[in-house]
């Protein structure tokens, strides 16, 4: 959880940077090794998750040594890692020697054997392993072999072999012969010193000191190393030469040190202001890259830091401590990122930052102390405004702690949220737990607790000028909550303006009925069909305007001319594609507040979520491209779970989703029983089914890629039709004979009629629905049929008729009737055929099992055994990936199956046919 006032990093936490950086290196993709002329300069290139990271071999070693333990490591990473470990073992065993300017392996016989085992007989792999081993061996020693490149093959004085001498040396180390083996290898560091007089002149001194390579705490000044003996300085007799080499290397990194090399005893040099600026500006980093640290005395106030502070723009809108006003986040509110410098963590005042900005030298007095200021910090003090931010960007940064700060320096990594913005953040985070607002007087209904909570939440967000997405399960009363919100907003001071509801055509009637029922007297009009009148909306009773997505798209310009108080997008998944004409049109309609309603889960489809939230609160998630870069790509690649967590913190205040199953949400709903009815095929169906499979599979197996897809889909459709009823498949006008499905339906309808109930029958085929309608006609059962072609007006009449109890059987095509409708009169739901997506079936069942339902609901699914209806369900359970593809893309995904899989799927199982009577 994010705590106020705590610094949040934009990219990586400064502490433990090394570790995070290493775990950030992708190892899941193929890795390559690029050998260099000088083996130590070889580079490993890691890939994975859409990223590529190139590291020099020395830096890659900690990644490679850990890689084999990571499950996701790609085989090529494992091969390189294996070679690297082999190289390390050769070095650890002392099996290497100088050869000119390069450290080369002297592999023993077993090393060669291990090389072979690692790479097998594959020639490129062997070359790779050889190259990596050579690179590791050359890169682990801290520097190239020191003396000349032209080594005499026959030296003046014969010496023992290098390897023997190294072995002897290592034995010495092991035996801990400490007194005789004074430290030889030293690391160099530079100590900065200055007295008062020098500081006043803007100058400092650089004093080189040497550290024991093994024990950096053992150190002495270079001066003592040059002038004292071993007893005094405690280093070995070659330490001075190593120090001179290190000094030369440091001078290559930062040239003012050349002056130290010119001294007989390199004790110290004085830097003038220019040199000090150069040291601060790039020298420290260049030296650091060579392992030379620069140490500053604490008295010089080096603990000066810069953080980006995000808050309302100072000085533009009166005192910053003004109480939080309603609508403080309206579009004209201004926020900005500003640099704030701090000394030992205490923020500097504006005057102090001005003084710092104006100083001609990096050395100045600050709060009674001397301070050495990095030129980059001085630049930040000079130009403190980083950039302005919109309210949505500011809120996003406050919630996630992430902001893209594009300052002049890449190290601008910390954002602090200012006081007034923190209040907004707290208000947002606690919006859902606020004491519930009064139910508006005009609402003639009792809101359930969770609905009142939803109303309160919507009120909090919209009054801040932010949008919201209410994603409660269907049937939890989103419509009535929205009506309450509109009434509540209208009842406030200055809260005037009409409410626009954009919804699918099938829901217009539902909205109108609910507004008339729950907010009697509030004007509600349709902006649809021939009725497109927007006159009189600015009156004292603005009320509701209902329109469809289609009409809104065509007439967006007209609608944009109305000063809406609230725009509601119902079934907002219709605008999940932000590039569609409908979504673009919706964006052009301004309003004080925007609310998206949806009953389908959106939080896992990042791009769709972006579309909804970017409409509701424009700019919250940044541009589409920025969103992909900052959030979607890292989350989808799954590299850093922290990113996912930060994203949840960012979006969760704007999303409210309650499920029916949540405790306390809808306890009043009566129980629902689901039954899978396993039915057999008639003999006629079996014959048809087998003949059709034979014929269709023949053609599919002979078809080319292009034609195949169509043939497969046609076969699937045909088989499902046969399972429903032979007459469906044979395109006959009426049901002749019966199938087990129609028998069962008759049975259910009989029960319904006997119990004075009502039933919804869903099929995905309008033709089947028509056949059933004819069948019911013959039996004299009142019924009605709703499908995609039913005009809006007729739909509403049908829903009203059904809800009033006049028609006991309602046939619906799944696509037309599956969402939005309120059909609580039904206590039975029949799924006549299978739709592979359980969520779609679930939504259809929820037409009946929703608020307002008083009786237990029975859901019947008809499944013919041994047929594709049963087999696909099994297949989807077995193959999760395919199931996901089907959920997203529908049956089309099944066309990707191989011929064999397909045949296996459709072939009728022996238990399918009806036993001979």
């Amino acid at each position, binding site marked *: 959880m994010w705590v106020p006032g705590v610094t949040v990093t934009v990219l990586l936490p400064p502490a433990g940077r090394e570790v995070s950086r290493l775990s950030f290196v992708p190892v899941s993709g193929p890795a390559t090794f690029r050998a260099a002329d000088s083996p130590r300069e070889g580079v490993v290139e890691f890939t994975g998750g859409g990223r590529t990271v190139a590291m020099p071999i020395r830096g890659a070693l*900690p990644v490679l*040594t850990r890689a084999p333990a990571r499950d996701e490591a790609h085989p090529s990473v494992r091969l390189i890692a294996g070679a690297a*470990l082999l190289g390390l073992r050769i*070095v650890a065993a002392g099996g290497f020697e100088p050869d000119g300017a390069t450290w080369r392996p002297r592999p023993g016989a077993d090393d060669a054997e291990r090389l072979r085992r690692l790479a097998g007989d594959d020639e490129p792999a062997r070359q790779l392993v050889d190259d990596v081993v050579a690179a590791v061996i050359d890169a682990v020693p801290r520097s190239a072999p020191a003396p000349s490149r*032209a080594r005499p093959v026959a030296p003046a004085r014969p010496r023992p072999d290098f390897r023997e001498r190294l072995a002897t040396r290592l034995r010495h180390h092991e035996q801990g012969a400490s007194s005789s083996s004074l430290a030889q290898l030293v690391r160099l560091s530079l100590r900065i010193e200055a007295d008062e007089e020098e500081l006043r002149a803007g100058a400092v001194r650089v004093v080189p000191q040497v550290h024991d390579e093994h024990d950096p705490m053992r150190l002495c000044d270079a001066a003592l190393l040059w002038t004292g003996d*071993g007893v005094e300085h405690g280093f070995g007799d*070659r330490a001075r*030469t190593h120090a001179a080499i290190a000094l030369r290397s440091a001078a290559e990194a930062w040239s003012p040190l050349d002056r130290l*090399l010119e001294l007989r005893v390199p004790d110290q040099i004085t830097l003038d202001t220019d040199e000090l600026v150069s040291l601060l500006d790039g020298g420290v980093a260049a030296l650091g890259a060579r392992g030379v640290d620069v140490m500053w005395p604490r008295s010089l106030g080096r603990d000066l830091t810069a953080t980006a502070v995000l808050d309302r723009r100072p000085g533009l809108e009166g005192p910053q401590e003004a109480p939080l006003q309603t609508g403080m986040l309206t579009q004209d509110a201004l926020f900005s990122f500003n640099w704030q410098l701090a000394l030992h963590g205490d923020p500097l005042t504006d005057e102090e930052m001005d003084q710092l900005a104006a100083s001609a030298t990096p050395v100045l007095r600050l709060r009674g102390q001397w301070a050495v200021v990095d030129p980059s910090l001085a630049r930040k003090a000079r130009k403190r405004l980083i950039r302005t931010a919109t309210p949505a960007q500011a809120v996003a940064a406050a919630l996630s702690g992430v902001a893209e700060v594009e300052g002049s320096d890449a190290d601008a990594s910390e954002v602090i949220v200012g006081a007034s913005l923190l209040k907004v953040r707290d208000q947002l985070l606690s919006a859902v737990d606020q004491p519930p607002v009064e139910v508006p007087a005009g609402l003639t209904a009792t809101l359930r607790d969770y609905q009142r909570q939803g109303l309160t939440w919507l009120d909090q967000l919209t009054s801040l000028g932010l949008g919201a997405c209410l994603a409660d399960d269907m049937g939890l009363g989103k419509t009535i909550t929205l009506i309450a919100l509109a009434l509540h907003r209208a009842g406030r001071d200055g809260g005037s303006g009409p409410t626009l509801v954009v919804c699918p055509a099938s829901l217009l009637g539902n909205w109108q009925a609910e507004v008339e029922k729950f907010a009697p007297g509030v004007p509600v009009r349709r902006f649809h069909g021939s009725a497109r009148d927007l006159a009189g909306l600015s009156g004292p009773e603005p009320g509701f305007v209902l329109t469809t997505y289609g009409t809104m798209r065509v007439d967006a310009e007209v609608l944009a001319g109305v000063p809406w108080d609230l725009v509601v997008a119902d079934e907002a998944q219709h605008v999940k594609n932000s590039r569609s004409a409908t979504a673009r049109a919706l964006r052009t309609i301004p309003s004080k507040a925007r609310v998206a309603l949806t009953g389908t889960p959106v939080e896992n489809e990042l791009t769709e979520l972006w579309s909804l939230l970017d409409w509701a609160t424009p700019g919250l998630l940044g541009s589409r491209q920025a969103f992909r870069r900052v959030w979607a790509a890292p989350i989808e690649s799954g590299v850093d779970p922290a990113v996912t967590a930060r994203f949840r913190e960012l979006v969760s205040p704007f999303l409210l989703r309650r499920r029916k199953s949540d405790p306390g949400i809808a306890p009043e709903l009566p129980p629902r029983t689901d039954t899978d009815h396993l039915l057999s095929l008639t003999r006629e169906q079996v014959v048809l089914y087998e003949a059709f499979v034979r014929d269709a599979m023949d053609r599919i197996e002979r078809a080319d890629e292009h034609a195949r897809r169509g043939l497969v889909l046609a076969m699937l459709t045909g088989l499902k039709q046969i399972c429903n009823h032979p007459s469906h498949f044979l395109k006959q006008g009426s049901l002749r004979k019966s199938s087990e499905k129609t028998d069962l339906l008759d049975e259910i309808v009989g029960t319904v009629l006997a119990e004075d109930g009502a039933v919804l029958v869903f099929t995905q085929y309008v033709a089947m629905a028509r056949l059933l309608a004819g069948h019911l006609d013959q039996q004299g059962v009142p019924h009605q049929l709703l499908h995609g072609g039913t005009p809006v007006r007729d739909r509403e009449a049908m829903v009203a008729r059904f809800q009033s109890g006049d028609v006991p059987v309602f046939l619906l095509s799944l696509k037309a009737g599956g969402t939005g409708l309120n059909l609580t009169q039904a206590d039975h739901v029949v799924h006549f055929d299978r739709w592979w997506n359980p969520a779609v079936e679930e939504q259809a069942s929820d037409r009946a099992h929703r608020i307002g339902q008083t009786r237990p609901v029975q859901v019947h699914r008809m499944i013919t055994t041994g047929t594709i209806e049963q087999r696909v369900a099994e297949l989807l359970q077995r193959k999760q990936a395919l199931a996901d593809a089907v959920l997203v893309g529908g049956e089309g995904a099944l066309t990707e199956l191989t011929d064999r899989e397909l045949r296996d799927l459709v072939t009728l199982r022996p238990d399918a046919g009806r036993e001979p009577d």
Partner: protein
Amino acid sequence: MPTHARIAPRTAGAARARSWWGKAWLRAVEEAAYGDDDLRKGRALARAGKVGGIAVEPGGFLASVEDGDAVATVTGSVPVLDGAATESLVETVAAESGRVAALLAGDLPHGLVEHAEEVGVELLPYGGELATRCTCEPWTDPCRHGIAVLQQIGWLLEADPFVLVALRGLERDDLLARVHAASGASAEAPPDPLDLDLDVAAEAVRVAADLLTEADQ
């Protein structure tokens, strides 16, 4: 006598001197040559890798040169520094802490040579100081074989300026030991240059062992 390995054939481009002191040496070889013809032939032999291993000792060198079917043996000499001049050279190197490091890195600082000249030590020979004798019994000195060897010595000392110092009579180890003694107050054992590598190598063994331990965790 330290002997340098036979040098593989080089292209004309690779045979050209790059460092300022390498150029100075090759200019001296040009001065020493009698005519362009010898110079051209000598250089061709050097580039073709016809010179065997070159033994360098204080004040002189020895190498054989293949020329067609014949093999010629060249001996040569460079005047060595006398005791006082040697002292001055040691003192000059010790005067700046960066000079030993530069020599170890294969660099001959211009300042070092200029500083030495100021105290009367001529490190780089002029043409007349390069004398050779050859078993081909030439009319001219140096003959093309001598030039070939001198040319290759130029390559050697370009890569390692200690070769030049050695020709002047002061071997690398002696120079380092005397510089070490001269630059500090202590009289310690002379550093063996190969020990510098040994220090780096021993440290590497330790680092590799640490990395392997980490990998096992």
